[in-house]
């Protein structure tokens, strides 16, 4: 069925009284996600969309038995929001917020790792298990339940890919946007490992871009450890070197992190790479 989340996941919304937090809490509830609490320091005791608001993650978790949270707080408060999760009983936190200082992301990630918690993001659209649980900001209706896993560094590009999968009759087990920043909580390899173990996933689509070496690490992991098929799409073939393409992590620094170099490494490892988005479904093996 899915990795990381399912229909039973009980979710806290950090920053639920803010404009984005409140809007997306409603959207997630409408999709069927079990939003059990909200957290905004100083606003405990209120209710939003019928959901109780607490001052701290610890209180919210204790009162509701939540096991995951999603963070919509402004960038400057993200570190504290994540440190709260590190000290709580939650197991998973998804950080949607964009523009988090890199030192804050590193510090929060250190604490979360030490506490054995998983972070998705920051600067990501979140993750969705179609028809069961949506934690994030993606349009729910383009997804359909099925057996393809999707992992992506992008937001709207992921929606494009999901749309062509859905149109081709290929449903998804879980779709995860891992985030566009240089420092993120979960990388391609971490999630490929989970998809490899997930009995409800048959194949994985990996959506990468310029910058960093995560796609190369994924290629190596696939070659050495993975039995399930993986296909890829890579954005940024036309990106000029030395320029940051919107995402903080999307910067061609050298010859190794160009889209072309990554496509070469992925294909050498046996992962077919689609040149057009519409080619993605055709590259997946007939299952």
């Amino acid at each position, binding site marked *: 069925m899915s990795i990381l989340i399912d229909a039973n996941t009980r979710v806290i919304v950090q920053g639920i009284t803010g404009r984005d937090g409140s809007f997306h809490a409603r959207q997630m509830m409408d999709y069927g996600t079990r939003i059990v609490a909200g957290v905004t320091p100083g606003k405990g005791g209120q209710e939003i969309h019928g959901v109780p608001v607490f001052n701290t993650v610890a209180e919210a978790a204790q009162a509701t038995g939540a096991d995951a949270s999603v963070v919509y707080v402004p*960038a*400057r408060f993200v570190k504290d929001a994540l440190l709260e999760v590190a000290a709580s009983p939650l197991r998973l936190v998804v950080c949607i917020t964009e*523009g*988090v*200082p*890199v*030192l804050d*992301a*590193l*510090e929060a*990630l*250190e*604490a979360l790792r030490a506490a054995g918690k998983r972070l998705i993001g920051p600067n990501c*659209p979140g993750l969705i298990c179609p028809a069961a649980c949506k934690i994030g*900001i*993606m*349009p729910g209706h*383009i997804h359909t339940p099925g057996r393809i896993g999707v992992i992506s*560094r*992008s*937001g*709207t*590009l*992921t*929606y*494009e890919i999901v*749309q062509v999968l859905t149109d081709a009759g290929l449903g998804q087990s879980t779709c995860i946007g891992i985030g*566009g920043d*240089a*420092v*993120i*909580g979960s990388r391609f390899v971490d999630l490929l490992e989970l998809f490899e173990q997930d009995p409800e996933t048959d194949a994985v689509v990996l*959506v990468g*871009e*310029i910058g*960093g*070496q*995560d796609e190369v*690490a994924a290629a190596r992991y696939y070659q050495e450890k993975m039995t399930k098929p993986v296909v890829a*799409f890579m*954005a*940024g*073939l*036309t*990106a*000029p070197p030395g*320029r*940051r*393409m*919107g*995402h*903080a*992590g*999307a910067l061609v620094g*050298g010859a190794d992190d160009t*889209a072309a170099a990554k496509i070469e490494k992925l294909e050498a490892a046996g992962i077919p790479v689609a*040149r*057009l*988005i*519409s080619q993605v479904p055709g590259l997946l093996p007939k299952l």
Partner: protein
Amino acid sequence: MKIHEYQAKDLFREFGIVVQPGRVAATPAQAAAAARELGLPVVIKAQVHAGGRGKAGGVKIVDKAEDVAATSRKILNLTIKGLPVRRILVSPSVDLAAEVYLSLLVDRGVSKLVFIGCAEGGIEIEETAKASPEKILRLEVPAAGIGALEPDDCLDFAGQLFHEPAHARAAAVIMTKMGRLFKERDCELIEINPLVVTGQGEVMALDAKILLDDNGLIRHPENEALRDLYSENADELEAKRAGLSFIRLDGNVGCMVNGAGLAMATMDIIKHFGGAPANFLDVGGSSNPNKVVTAFKAILKDPKVRLILINIFGGITRCDDIARGILAAREQIQVPVPIVVRLVGTNQKEGRALLKDTEMTVASTLEEGARLAVQMIGSKP
């Protein structure tokens, strides 16, 4: 955000990392005066946001007073990797007893903060890392404590760079100061290449490179003052202030897209069909019609643009807001080129209805849009 060597050295001084005295000059006369003040020989270095300054002729040692102005003029007339040299840094030349490489950076592969060292200084670190990885030293440091490192935390590492205990101790102290600077000004990279021991036995940073974290600007408005407006594209900066992510390219198909990954993919697909994108533009997630107007203005400042391809996959972004922005832009400014628009996702029906009575070309997929755009440009001289 890149800053210049002279600015990085100012920050080094502020945090107690030893650097040479230096004067920034914008004219040959200023450079000559600086050389008189500092004493010859001097090193003159181009201050541009580009690597490989030495190879490009942007770093020169001058022995004679009468040569300072001429050499400075030559460097000030250079354009290095497309960037004109507007300033030079004049410093006294130093006798070197030893030089090493030292940096503090974010290793994104493992999401950790690390010191990187190499006992050979003045080198291209990426090339050494490839050719002789065994020469590269690494020390992972916790981000939570980076502002409060103790010299003892760094001494083993520094001892592998310098065998002389006094020099190793001095380098360890420099590492603690790099940590404090990294924390207090929100850096992404601090690189000293080379860190040297002078003939007098002093350990000092001969060069200085700092990248400041763009996301750190939210708590460091003072970092903004270090931005070199001349080395950044004015249109790109203006777009950034409006909340757009915009980069000018060489082609003639203007692009307006929501989302950075999709914006890159849109450029790639234009190229795939034989066209050339004129820009990267991410209008961002919010649904503000004014942003669309600003985006049109930014794209149309480039006279090469012959068509605009709008590709929106609505999630948070609402297609009707984008459509309203397109209509507003056509009222407020002259849009002298054809538009191909592809709107799907949230409120796509409303968005398309708003554009129904215009002469814009509508595409249902990104690929169809890109193909149409390239065809339309190709069919007109």
